[in-house]
């Protein structure tokens, strides 16, 4: 084995440039695999976390007939006395926060411009809404007592050329089916770095939203966060009610899960393409080596080296190229992944209906994925070495000796 290893190592050294280029192909392939896996994982992870933080929470309590595609403000479609429900929810130890939200559809108008928005009545003091407070770009956050202030997102502010302190007209569909409008002051402008969400979400205190829409002491949903999202099923079971439904983040984010599965399948195709190109380079290198060394194969065969050992010789050369390439790929790809994990990259508004993607993707790579991809690249390179190794092993000594 030592001799085989020594020969394989020296044989690769005969044409250093070619061997290094082959290893480089494996390195680039490996780095690409890592980067692609990290970006897709980061994208999916970011979208899920974003959606949980902004929209779904870990659990939601909803009215039994809740329809997320229709914003109904009829009292029978809302949760009555939400603060009482929340008081009960908060008795469960795994619950870190429960807060009411009231949704209403409205239209912002200013001068000639208008835009459809979702008005969200929130409890400004709730830690679940800290994300909007943290994202405040200018002005102040709304307070529970505020009756004229609203919070608008950066894209909407840009569209209407608004700044904190400016006034806009807000028209709302009311509980009774009629509409009402009122002049509001832009108390603050926020960003969650999720363009699709920020351009349509206008916040006001829950009490004001209830009064403005005629919803009385009602909320559309109770937004709940837990210590650990894996506790969702357990807590949902504990909150079981005959008059309200409890929905977990898994159920609410089915589209993201499906999209993740689709992305996973799509990535496998991309992996195969990248590894296929890498494998072709390695095969080509070793086939050239076999034909250049035909006479040597004949000599080794003549002195009694059997086909499996000749095959092992070329497989070992493939393994050495794979090792060098994969180590290089891990270093190069690791550096790229690190950069995009720390700094991310801007994608702008890539959100889709039901999926809230941030405008920045941060790469995320697990040790498991890294190991799996390294093993896959290693095995593919070995498989790529099989064809030239078989050519070498099947050469008849008498023909090989003639070169």
């Amino acid at each position: 084995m030592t001799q085989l290893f020594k020969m394989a190592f020296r044989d690769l050294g005969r044409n250093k440039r070619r061997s290094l280029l082959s290893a480089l192909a494996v390195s680039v392939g490996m780095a690409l695999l890592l980067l692609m896996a990290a970006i897709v994982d980061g994208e999916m992870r970011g979208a899920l976390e974003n959606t949980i933080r902004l929209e779904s929470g870990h659990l939601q309590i909803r009215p039994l007939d809740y329809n997320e595609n229709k914003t109904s403000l009829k009292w029978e479609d809302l949760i009555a006395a939400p603060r009482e429900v929340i008081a009960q929810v908060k008795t469960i130890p795994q619950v870190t926060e429960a807060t009411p939200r009231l949704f209403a559809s409205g239209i912002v108008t200013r001068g000639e411009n208008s835009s459809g928005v979702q008005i969200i009545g929130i409890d400004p003091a709730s830690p679940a809404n800290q994300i909007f407070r943290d994202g405040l770009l200018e002005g102040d956050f709304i307070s529970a007592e505020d009756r004229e202030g609203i919070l608008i997102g950066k894209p909407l502010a840009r569209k209407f050329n608004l700044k904190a302190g400016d006034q806009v007209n807000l028209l709302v569909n009311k509980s009774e089916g009629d509409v009402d409008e009122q002049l509001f002051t832009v108390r603050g402008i926020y960003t969650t770095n999720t363009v699709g969400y920020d351009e349509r979400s206008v916040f006001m205190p829950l009490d004001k939203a209830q009064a403005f829409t005629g919803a009385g002491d009602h909320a559309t949903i109770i937004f709940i966060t837990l210590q650990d999202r894996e506790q969702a099923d357990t807590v949902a079971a504990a909150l079981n009610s005959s008059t309200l439904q409890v929905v977990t983040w898994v159920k609410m984010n089915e589209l993201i899960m499906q999209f993740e599965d689709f992305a996973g399948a799509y990535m496998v195709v991309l992996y195969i393409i990248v590894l296929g190109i890498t494998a072709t380079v390695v095969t080509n290198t070793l086939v050239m080596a076999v034909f250049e060394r035909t006479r040597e194969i004949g000599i080794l065969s003549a002195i009694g080296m059997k086909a499996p050992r000749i095959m092992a010789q070329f497989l070992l050369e493939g393994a050495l190229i794979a090792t060098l390439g994969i180590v290089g790929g891990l270093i190069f790809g690791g550096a790229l992944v690190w950069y995009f994990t720390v700094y991310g990259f801007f994608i702008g508004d890539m959100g889709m209906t039901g999926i809230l993607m941030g405008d920045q993707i941060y790469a995320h790579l697990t040790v498991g994925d890294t190991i799996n991809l390294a093993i896959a690249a290693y095995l593919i390179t070995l498989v790529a070495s099989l064809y030239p190794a078989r050519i070498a092993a099947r050469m008849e000594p008498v023909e090989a000796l003639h070169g």
Partner: protein
Amino acid sequence: MEVTKIINATRVFKIGQMETHALRGVNLTINSGEFTALVGPSGSGKTTLLQLIGLLDQPTTGSVFINGRDVTKFNRNQRADLRRGTIGFIFQFFALIPTLTAYENIEMPLLLNGMGAVERKTRVNEMLAAVGLTDRAHHRPDQLSGGQQQRVAVARALSINPTFVLADEPTANLDTENGRQVMDIMKKLNKETGVTFVFATHDPRVIGYAERVVTLEDGMIVGQA
């Protein structure tokens, strides 16, 4: 004692529709300790006959015996096993592995035979001394002259204590002096170790070393002396 015997061997090569009769019913027996030359013009079948004796090729018809055993129908692996422990080869071109040193080239067949490290080292050093290349042990082929390379090939062929050594035009690519040196070493080792040598040549100076000369023409043995 006969080490190899060829009975009525033919070898036909087919290239497309064309058949070339390289050997046409050859009968030959080589006895232990012989120093035999196969002579004849190019295309007479010398190399083909050596390849049959060396189990690098198989006859189209006829039989090949090694040490009294019929090996005609041996498969590829059986032939490789037999070659590894029984037959030494010296080729016309300096058939060394370019990435290995002289020492490692001689060591290779011993490794394939599974010889232990200590025994191997002793044997390689003995062979290097026998061909006068102890001081060139760690040189690679491209750092050796043609004559030195062929001497390494002789040492490699003899390292396994073969039953016989087959040499195909061993001096064809050497100048007179180097050719003489290689033949002197082969002859000396034949005398000292008793190993059988069969070599193909058409060089009259080399034929002079042979104790027995087998002449081939058009794939047939036409004379023995």
